[in-house]
């Protein structure tokens, strides 16, 4: 959704238009859910957090400032709620290793080739991403998946942009370490994957 149409919809929603807010929900729900799901790795919890984030965004529309993109503001709300949820999960002793949760979730992608090499690459990649800290994982997802700048990610995480760069750098170092351990022997297959299966 373009910035201009976002601004127009938000302005209408601020004036009380529920239809305008519905359009914003429809525009961002998939992206927001994918982001939250990758942090929580639980379908129902992710839907609840997303719903709560949208309702919170609606309640706080008066405090939204157009100096930020609406997506940045929405993802900020969702991220804070994810953090609260993860803390509660940890406090009640119910936290599982994120990598375990991720591996128990059913695969839903229909876009990648179903080859063994593609599945292995995805397993390794998402296993490595799941092993990052919450801040590093969030920075990676927002930077590479949502195309957010370091400044915008800093706004969402509540940290300086230079810290975001540091998170990204450390995340890539960790990912590189995992790949060099897990995938060196599959390099030839990786070259083929990069060219065909991931398009």
């Amino acid at each position, binding site marked *: 959704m373009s910035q201009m149409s976002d601004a127009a919809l938000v302005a209408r929603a601020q004036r009380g238009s*529920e239809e305008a807010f519905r359009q914003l929900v429809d525009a961002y729900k998939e992206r927001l*859910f994918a982001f939250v799901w990758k942090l929580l790795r639980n379908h129902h919890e992710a839907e609840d957090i*997303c719903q709560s984030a949208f309702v919170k965004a609606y309640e706080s529309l008066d405090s939204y400032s157009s100096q930020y993109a609406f997506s940045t503001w929405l993802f900020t709300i969702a991220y804070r709620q994810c953090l609260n949820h993860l803390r509660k999960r940890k406090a009640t002793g119910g936290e599982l290793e994120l990598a375990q949760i991720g591996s128990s979730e059913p695969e839903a992608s229909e*876009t990648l080739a179903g080859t063994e090499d593609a599945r292995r690459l995805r397993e390794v*990649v998402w296993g490595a991403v799941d092993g990052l800290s919450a801040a590093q994982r969030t920075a990676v*997802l927002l930077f590479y998946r949502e195309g957010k700048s370091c400044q915008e990610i800093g706004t969402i995480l509540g940290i300086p942009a230079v810290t975001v760069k540091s998170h990204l750098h450390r995340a890539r170092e960790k*990912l590189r370490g995992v790949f060099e351990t897990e*995938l060196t022997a599959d390099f030839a297959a990786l070259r083929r994957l*990069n060219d065909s299966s991931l398009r």
Partner: protein
Amino acid sequence: MNCREAQQLIDAHLDGQLSGSLRLEFEAHRLRCARCQQTLAMMEACLHVVASDRCAPPLSDDFTSRVMSAVGRRRAVRRRPLLLAGGMLSAAAAVLLLAVGLRLVGPSAPGAADPSPDSFDLAVERVDAYEAKYAQVLMALRARLAEAIRDGQPVPADMVAMADLLNIELPAGIDGRTLETAANNPLSLLFGMVPAEPPAPAKTPDGERHSL
């Protein structure tokens, strides 16, 4: 450029931050070094998966409907206190007008038989016009609230709404002690607040938040 230097520039290359001669040197090294080619290919493949892999399960079909239902419920809850306070003020304005007409103005004074307000806005204007009685209502409400809080009694939500409208500052956490309003008759509460003999008006500067 050697491998150690090239490895340190991989991050910058992935971020598109290499430029000029540094970028040319990096590209030249990459072309002749299998190890750096491998590392770069793995990182590019990884980031491609992160950026484009749709591995999240599908969102429920009724997700938007559920969000909008929750939004609608929030709007209904937020409207209720405002309607209640508005209703209270209308009732207060009507009774106040009657009280002022009978006690201070008298039947012979001009404007004694004030007409009932036609609208909420008009009622508010008329209440504001009777400053002395307004101050008395304010004092009476403050006294009733202070008594309820001191005795540890729940404070009716309509009184809290009226306090808010009259700019009376309540202690923190008072909302948690409010009662449902169905059992309270706002007019009977108001009658109890209007004293038979007007006490000396409180010397409170205009526009200041009154404290209990």
